[in-house]
């Protein structure tokens, strides 16, 4: 019963904050909404017996990544965009049709899926969400992705430095 309440609250919050993320025009507000959404999702993770992931979600995602956003917003300052004609206006219908179509397809997918237990009460999982289980899994079966993530981070670091450097065009470059 607890999960159901949690799910109800968290999913509602996630969807609401999600909607705010994409509708609020000020970057700061949108980013704060994203934090709310991420926290709500973290709650969903908790409900799904994934405490570690939930924790990481809160600490790393909401705590670090989004804060980065806020830094940048602070650096750039709030500048509402001038209202322009929407250049995509003539494609708007296409976009809505496509999105509604996708939603419909998702619904059909969920409705017709034969996946056993999709709509049943969930079975209680083993200890899959604890840090220990995840650590073991990472170092056992998933050492390749684990190691490879470091590459992603290296790229991010190198890339960030490169992009931040003011344009240097010496050494015979044109």
């Amino acid at each position: 019963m607890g999960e159901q309440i949690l799910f109800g609250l968290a999913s509602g919050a996630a969807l609401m904050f999600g909607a705010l993320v994409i509708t609020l025009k000020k970057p700061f507000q949108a980013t704060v909404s994203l934090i709310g959404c991420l926290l709500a999702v973290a709650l969903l993770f908790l409900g799904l017996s994934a405490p570690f992931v939930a924790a990481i979600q809160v600490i790393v995602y909401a705590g670090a990544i989004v804060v980065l956003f806020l830094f940048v917003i602070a650096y750039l300052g709030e500048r509402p965009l001038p209202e322009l004609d929407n250049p995509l206006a003539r494609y708007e219908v296409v976009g809505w049709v496509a999105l509604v179509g996708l939603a419909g397809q998702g619904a059909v997918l969920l409705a017709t899926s034969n996946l056993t237990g999709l709509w049943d009460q969930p079975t209680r999982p083993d200890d899959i969400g604890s840090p220990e289980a995840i650590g073991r899994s990472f170092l056992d079966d998933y050492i390749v992705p684990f190691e490879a993530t470091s590459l992603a981070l290296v790229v991010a670091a190198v890339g960030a430095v490169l992009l931040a450097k003011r344009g240097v065009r010496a050494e015979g470059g044109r």
Partner: protein
Amino acid sequence: MMETMEGVPLGLYLAVSGALFLMGLLGVLIRRNPLLLLLAVELMLNSANVALVGFSRHWNVTDGHIFALVVMVVAAAEVVIGLGLVVATFKQRRALDVDRMTVLKG
């Protein structure tokens, strides 16, 4: 240990996940500020994470959790680079509007 428990069926999680994904897509389509676009992408990645973790519980395996964690790292890397690009663009153009980035077209 496969006893059922009082809880929320996977399908509902998937529905929420799907809704979040579509919201992210919608966000990408309607926002002009690249920062907001990046936020929308975060929504999409999160929705996938919900699905991954949900499936992971469904099948009683850790794969989904691992996947979700990897996704978070990737999201971090993407955000870092994305923000770097946004800042560089801002420094160059003094405006943040993807609708004005049309030097390249045709």
